[in-house]
């Protein structure tokens, strides 16, 4: 019986399934799941006088949220990170939607070329983009200054990246400029998937393009709005490279651009004279994990659940 190869599923032990699954599962577990769990464990430990890490309960969390020195940085980074996220939500995603709406028009001349170019910045390294904008906005080179003077608004020029009031917003807008391609593409795909008959029927009924968009197309792409929102959220609370490249690990001026990623890096890796503190670092990572988890759960249960009713 065991020798009939046609009945694979009836064989005593399916070794091939293990052979197929094991390599990926081992690498993934060892370098992703284990480190994540171990970091959570580490957040409950603190070094004692001999420098040995011992169990400390929730002590690190209490310090992070209430200690004078730690809590200022934590709440500051969290607030900045939310500002960073809201600028993406209200600049990147609406502009992305506008570009997608225009791109998805039927018989648009040059559609492929537009699409390719508009997505290009998204492909480049954040490090490179950060430096490029630093150069453009630099008063030393004067490109931004020169361009503003051609339209007569040079008096508005300021070294935006160096000012406490404007540095964070400027960085967020640089990031928006770079990543606008992602929401654009996702919205674009969703808009193209809408059946033509639906749109034509509305046109026959005399609806304008504006009404068609907001009454028919937008409700139909709401699931994509949810996906774009959660992707933006996770991406923003994981951001680091742009701030580190342009403002350094201290996220200056005066921590004005400090977000969770830079705070996490500084804490566990150390900077200048301060030594790294792995257990506090793990605590910050655990907080980031919690923040991302809350976002994902809100999306899954608060948004996606309701969306299923829209599916055709």
């Amino acid at each position, binding site marked *: 019986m065991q020798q009939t190869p046609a009945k694979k599923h009836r064989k005593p032990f399916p070794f091939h399934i293990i052979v197929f699954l094991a390599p990926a599962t081992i690498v993934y577990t*060892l370098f992703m799941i284990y*480190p994540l769990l171990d970091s959570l464990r580490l957040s409950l430990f603190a070094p004692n006088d001999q420098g040995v890490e011992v169990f400390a309960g929730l002590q690190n969390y209490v310090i992070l949220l209430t200690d004078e020195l730690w809590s200022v940085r934590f709440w500051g980074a969290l607030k900045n990170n939310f500002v960073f996220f809201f600028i993406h939500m209200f600049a990147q995603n609406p502009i992305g939607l506008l570009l997608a709406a225009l791109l998805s028009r039927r018989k648009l001349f040059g559609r492929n070329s537009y699409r390719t170019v508009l997505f290009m910045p998204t*492909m*480049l390294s954040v490090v490179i983009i950060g430096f490029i904008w630093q150069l453009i906005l630099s008063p030393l080179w004067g490109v931004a200054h020169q361009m503003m003077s051609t339209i007569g608004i040079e008096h508005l020029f300021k070294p935006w990246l160096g000012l406490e009031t404007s540095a964070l917003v400027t960085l967020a807008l640089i990031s928006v400029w770079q990543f606008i391609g992602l929401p654009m593409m*996702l919205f674009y795909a969703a808009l193209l998937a809408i059946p033509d008959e639906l749109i034509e029927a509305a046109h026959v009924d005399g609806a304008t393009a504006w009404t068609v968009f907001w009454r028919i197309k937008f409700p139909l792409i709401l699931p994509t709005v949810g996906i774009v929102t959660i992707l933006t959220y996770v991406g923003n609370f994981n951001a680091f490279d742009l701030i580190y490249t342009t403002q350094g690990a201290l996220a200056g001026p005066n921590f004005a651009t400090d977000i969770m990623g830079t705070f996490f890096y500084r804490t566990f890796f150390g900077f200048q004279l301060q030594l790294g503190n792995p257990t506090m670092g793990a605590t910050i990572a655990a907080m980031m994990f919690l923040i991302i988890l809350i976002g994902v759960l809100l999306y899954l249960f608060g948004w996606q659940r309701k969306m299923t009713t829209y599916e055709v």
Partner: protein
Amino acid sequence: MKKESSLSYKFNEFILPHIVLFGYTLIALFPIVLILMNSFKTRKAIFKAPLMPPTLTTFSLEGYQTVFERSNFQWYFVNSLIITVVTIILVLFLGAMAAYALSEYKFPGNTFMALYLALGIMIPIRLGTISILRLVVAMGLIDTLTALILVYTAQGLPLTIFVLQQFMSQVPRELKEAARIDGASEYRIFGLILPLVRPAIATVAVFVMIPIWNDLWFPLILAPGEKTRTVTYGAQQFLGQFVSDWNAVLSSLTLAMIPILILYVLFSRQLIRGITAGAVK
């Protein structure tokens, strides 16, 4: 009908979209073109007329000379290339095997494994960095390309498995059953299925590749040594040291951008088709 003939309708319908799209195209292209252009100019011309393309009199390669004399940029390219290529091969091979097992066989724990392997799509691997660093130190892999390859493989697997699983379950059952009747082993059937999901594999490859090539975080933490520097980390370090040498800065930025730009232009169709996943006909 009378609407279509009016001038304002024509403007709204045909001209306005192009004004907006073209305007945004300029915004998207300007910074990139500005850097490319100025990297081929003399220092004087960079400052005097930054918005002008290089001319015969202002053309200069001094920046590139500095970059190649003062840094090991060529080695950074080799490192990035090794990391990216090896990781992609590993991710695709291991990922395809796991995806095949999940999509082909019914076994207890199938759903659990699929969920377990998909967790990493939403949870950023960076959050486990402290323990990854300790693990890499314990394995004696600090400052090696191997460390980066292993971490990036773990990072790339969840999405790869998730996407390939969808595509593999669409391969007709009869095909596999026919092969089984002919006495092919399960491994052989996997080998027969692979070419059928080639388009999905190509798309996944690009998606896995870009974040690895562009990453700063893990090279900074796991492999900061000169010998293992990647293009992105190497450029970041070089730019930090040569801030005042504008020719060198612009040239190194250009060098770091060029490979991705070339790849993008070659594969943009494939990539965009991947993102829009079949919606584009």
